[in-house]
């Protein structure tokens, strides 16, 4: 008997004695001897993967011993265990390079959140009331199984999955589960999705994936609305490269130009900020190409396929002369000409499109136009240009079932819902979809909803049964990054700590359900760990690599850029070039510009207190919603900072405090997405307003993606009595003498 076993035995005996002799449950003690070697005050570091956005940054988690108050089998006690204390970037990881963004730093609060769902819940009140009863896992699993067995014997096609995007083995598992069950593919919902750009990249370059930007070796970067240093694509990887682009090369500092109607955190860093009119970014890109072609700096054939997709490309884009587009884009023709020549003469040059320009009804055209500009200067796959990450062969194809709008329409139009049981995984479309899609109403027609959510939000409040997932620090996590590196990466990390609550990992629950269905699904894995291990086995590695992968947090290696895949990319009609807006400009004179907020992204992080109290870098506001308007516009309407204004679209009305900002065009009103939750933990519920709730449901027609930048609004000042949530600004210390300018 070694020392550890000795302590275990004596502790077990002691625990029995303690429990028997103690009447007050609060004082009862469950003693667990930690499996891991923990020494008081000594930190160990374990790899992890941040799961707050799709970038997939590798983590290094500081773990120290501690005592957690837990409940196990109805009994309260204290569990001595290794606790995550701090998240850092993993210095060896090809995406994070040892760095982590503000949201990732706050990610530790997901695990320790006071409002986490701690064990399975069964709904007791009406849907949406938030009334639930705690039940045991046995009860919960048998209820879920009886529902699924019910539809398995009736109509297997009536099982649905609604999930956030899943990369890596979670995505493989969900696809396999649905296929083996005989159900249609999963519906993926993401507010700020990138379907439009993937489709454009597939057509222009043969890669249906997000690009990586080789900023560190670029000499000229021209971005159309992309917040690539803040909230979009792979912000940590690109920020690391951005630092090098600025000051990493002695004697060479690239120029960075940002074209957008509202200055983003990324745009604030530009050497030149170009306030182009919303929806004309693609026209601007083609005008730049026109100038380059006309000056004979490149030939039109240099752009290859990407150029052929554009009408009039081979004849020099005659209709896009700078004089012809000056009014539409709001930019002087001389400026367009200068930018074009700079772009062509300072190679390697790189054009980036992301965010709002893709979220217009002409988003696909705009992306194809910027792609053609990139192809014209020949930067695809080249140093300082546009790269596509080689993905190891274990990644799931993107889950691609019916999109949410079609699914909701189908449910609403049929007398018996085509989905009888819905599995809901970490997606919140009731908060995040436009009212015209009527998602809440459609979900209401689904007889039974099972959620894997860790928190009650607007969508999981509609669930009948909640099987709470582990946090990303408590479960096996894996990811195959889509962008952010030129290396081939499969991130894999074992659990950092033992689960705090009585939760179970979603993939393990799915595998267990598959095993216990009548008849069982033939899923080849006993549990998720085994599944991840089996996937890794196909990677080119020598024996012993599984252990090494677990220690370093994944597998990665150099690889050439993948070959383009031109399957199904026959020449198609050129998509619409003009952006259509919802609302007549006479009645609704302002463009409404919702944007992913620095703290909360799409709103999924509004429950973390550190992020609520993080002052927005551009607005400096905390705990608030606000609407950014140009000071001149405000003056014309008699609005001063902090006034409550009403924003009205064809689809709804919001009341928010006004924030005067010089970095926004006079005909644009911008609002960060993230606040305005009705039901999302004590920190976010009932705070601020949700800009998505007044959006039009119009889409980019060829991809079906929501055109979230295509809504027009009118604004007006409200009387003081109509107070929305106040505007709270960080004043940088204590100024107690002055209560008004905060």
């Amino acid at each position, binding site marked *: 008997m070694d020392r550890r076993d000795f302590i275990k035995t004596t502790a077990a005996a002691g625990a029995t004695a303690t429990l028997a002799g103690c009447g007050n449950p609060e004082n009862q003690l469950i003693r667990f001897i930690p499996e891991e070697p923990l020494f008081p*005050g000594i930190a160990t570091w374990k790899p992890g993967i941040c799961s707050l956005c799709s970038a997939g940054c590798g983590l290094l988690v500081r773990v*120290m011993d*501690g005592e*957690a*108050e837990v409940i196990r089998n109805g009994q309260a006690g204290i569990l001595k265990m290794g606790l*995550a*204390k*701090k998240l*850092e970037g993993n210095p060896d990881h090809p995406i994070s390079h*040892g*760095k*982590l*963004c*503000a949201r*990732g*730093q*706050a990610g530790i*609060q997901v695990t*320790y959140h*006071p409002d986490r769902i701690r064990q399975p819940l069964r709904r007791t009140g009406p849907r949406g009331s938030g009334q639930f009863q705690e039940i045991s896992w046995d009860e919960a699993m048998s209820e879920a199984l009886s529902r699924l067995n019910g539809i398995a014997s009736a109509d297997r096609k009536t099982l649905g999955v609604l999930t956030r995007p899943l990369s890596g083995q979670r995505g493989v598992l969900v696809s396999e589960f649905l296929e083996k069950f005989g159900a249609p593919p999963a519906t993926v919902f993401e507010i700020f999705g990138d379907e439009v750009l993937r489709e454009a990249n597939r057509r222009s370059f043969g890669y249906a994936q997000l690009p990586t930007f080789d900023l560190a070796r670029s*000499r000229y970067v021209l971005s159309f609305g992309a917040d690539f240093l803040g909230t979009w694509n792979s912000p*940590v990887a690109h920020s*690391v490269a*951005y*630092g090098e682009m*600025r*000051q990493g090369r002695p*004697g*060479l*500092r*690239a*120029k*960075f130009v940002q074209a957008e109607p509202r*200055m983003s*955190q990324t745009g*604030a860093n530009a*050497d030149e*900020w170009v306030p182009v009119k919303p929806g004309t970014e693609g026209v601007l890109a083609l005008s730049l190409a026109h100038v380059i072609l006309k000056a004979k700096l490149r030939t039109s054939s240099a752009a290859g396929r990407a150029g052929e997709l554009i009408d009039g490309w081979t004849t020099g884009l005659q209709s896009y002369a700078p004089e012809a587009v000056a009014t539409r884009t709001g930019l002087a023709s001389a400026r367009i000409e200068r930018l074009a020549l700079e772009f062509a003469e*300072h190679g390697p040059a790189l054009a980036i499109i992301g965010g709002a320009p893709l979220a217009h009804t002409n988003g696909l055209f705009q992306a194809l136009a910027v792609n053609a500009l990139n192809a014209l200067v020949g930067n695809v796959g080249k140093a300082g240009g546009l790269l596509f990450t080689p993905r190891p062969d274990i990644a799931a194809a993107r889950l691609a079932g019916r999109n949410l709008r079609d699914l909701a329409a189908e449910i609403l139009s049929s007398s018996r819902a085509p989905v009888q049981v819905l599995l809901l995984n970490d997606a919140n479309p009731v908060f995040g979809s436009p009212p015209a899609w009527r998602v809440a109403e459609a979900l209401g027609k689904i007889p039974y909803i099972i959620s894997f959510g860790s928190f009650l939000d607007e969508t999981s409040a509609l669930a009948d049964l909640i099987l709470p997932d582990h946090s990303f620090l408590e479960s096996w996590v894996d990811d195959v990054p889509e962008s952010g590196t030129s290396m081939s990466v499969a991130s894999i990390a074992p659990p950092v700590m033992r689960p705090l609550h009585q939760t179970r990992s979603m993939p393990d629950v799915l595998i267990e359900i598959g095993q216990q269905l009548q008849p069982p699904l033939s899923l080849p894995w006993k549990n998720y760990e085994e599944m991840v291990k089996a996937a890794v086995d196909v990677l080119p590695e020598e024996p012993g690599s599984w252990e090494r992968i677990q220690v370093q947090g994944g597998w990665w290696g150099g690889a050439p850029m993948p070959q383009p895949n031109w399957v199904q990319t026959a020449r198609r009609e050129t998509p619409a070039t003009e952006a259509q807006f919802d609302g007549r400009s006479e009645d609704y004179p302002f463009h409404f510009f919702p944007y992913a907020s620095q703290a909360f992204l799409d709103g999924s992080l509004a429950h973390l207190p*550190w992020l609520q109290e*993080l*002052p927005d*870098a*551009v607005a400096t506001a*905390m*705990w*608030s919603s606000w609407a950014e308007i*140009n000071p001149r516009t405000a003056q014309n309407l008699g609005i001063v900072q902090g006034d409550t204004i009403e924003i009205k679209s064809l689809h709804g009305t919001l009341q928010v405090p006004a924030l005067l*900002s*010089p*970095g926004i*065009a006079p005909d644009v009103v911008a609002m960060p997405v993230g606040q305005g939750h009705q039901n999302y933990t004590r920190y976010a519920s009932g705070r601020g307003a949700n800009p998505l709730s007044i959006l039009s449901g119009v889409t980019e027609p060829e991809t079906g993606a929501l055109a979230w930048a295509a809504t027009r609004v009118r604004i007006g000042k409200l009387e003081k009595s109509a107070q929305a949530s*106040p505007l709270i600004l*960080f*004043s*940088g*210390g*204590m100024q107690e003498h002055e*209560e008004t300018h*905060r």
Partner: protein
Amino acid sequence: MPHRWGMSVDLDRCTGCEACVVACHAENNIPTVGPDEAARGRAKHWMRVERYWEGEFPDVRLKFRPVLCQQCESAPCEPVCPTYASSHTSEGLNAQIYNRCIGTRYCANACPYNVRFFNFYNPVWEKPLDLQLNPDVSIREQGVMEKCTFCIQRINAGKIDAHANGREVQDGDIRPACVQSCTANALVFGDLNDPESAVSRLSRSPRGSKLLEELGTQPKVTYLERETWQESEGTRRG
């Protein structure tokens, strides 16, 4: 020679991402104060990113500047403290000794950089948020002033580690939480007494300046100005 800790902030690299701000919260057990107290200007951010607008639409620029305690050599916060809670360490840090502090707030009044924060209430960590607390950093209670420490717990750990391994502290061994997380590598920390350290070299940059240096506070944080692009510069090859 004793260490003299300093930092350089390259404003040409800084993107305003605020990773440093939350990294500081997580490392130093900084609680949230909630919306009501935040509205009174009592939010605690030892590290903040200030933003400055220049010009008017459409010719508008926005500049970010991360601001933390400047660890002044001649610190206005120190001589005003009646209990020597605010004091100078042998390595040049402006230390705040919590159990000496009686909450006069003279130091916050004297500080020109607005980087001292007073605890008007006891911090609240709604369970189980308390499990994230860093055991290396003490929790500040009601009535006590707090401020950036340059992550002194990491400095001490770095020195102990080096000593245990029988060597001197090397440049780059010690990184405060903000520096470790800084995505664009804008923040660099090190020993100003070592002329070859990265921070010493950067502090000598012709782009360098100190915040409000005309006050004579002799800060140990150097800001490197953001550059402007010039056509000739862009065409020059490295």
